[in-house]
């Protein structure tokens, strides 16, 4: 049974970013209408020892993966917010994508 206050069109948003952005991302998602926000920790597949040897620079290896449900009509606004506030269009910041959801209850 579809719950009354759940939108019939939902997107499943996944964000992967450096761990230092966790708190601000969760706060922003919550204020933008994200629900069931889940935080998981992961690591990038980059071979940091290789980068350290070659350039002396290592992008943050430890990552956070944040998932949440978004109403379809808010997905564009959230993606825009990730670009404008967190600069996800710049390298070494993060990525975000949405997957359509069929059924919720």
């Amino acid at each position: 049974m579809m719950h009354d206050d759940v939108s019939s069109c939902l997107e499943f948003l996944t964000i992967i970013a450096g761990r230092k952005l966790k708190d601000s991302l969760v706060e922003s998602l919550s204020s933008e209408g994200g629900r069931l926000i889940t935080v998981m920790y992961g690591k990038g597949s980059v071979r940091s020892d290789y980068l350290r040897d070659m350039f002396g620079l290592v992008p943050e290896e430890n990552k956070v993966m944040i998932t949440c449900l978004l109403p379809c009509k808010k997905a564009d606004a959230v993606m825009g917010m990730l670009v404008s506030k967190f600069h996800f269009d710049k390298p070494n910041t993060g990525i975000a994508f949405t997957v359509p959801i069929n059924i919720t209850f």
Partner: protein
Amino acid sequence: MTESSPKKALYIIVNVGFADEVAEIMRKEGSGGATILNARGSGPMPKSILGITIDTEKEIILSVVDEEMSEKIIHAVRQKAGLGTPCNSICFTMPVDKFVMTHVSAPPDGPTK
């Protein structure tokens, strides 16, 4: 990589310790990068020793790639690290609707649809 090519979220579940090996296979097929998460498997008949349930440690590799590349990666992973090998990889993809990422050129007016 063109803007119009559909993207897929590629999930690969492997036994613990083999994520780097699979990430290397993905890299050779042209994947830009991946994120590795720790997980544990729960089979239909969990093993129990002295009342303690033994779960299998797993790693999940997640990457967003072109549809065409996802098929190449799945084929390569199945060949080199598929079921029956020590990796015991399981691959699946999900369709990506909207995305923001740096190595894909997004249109200037907002996120790619």
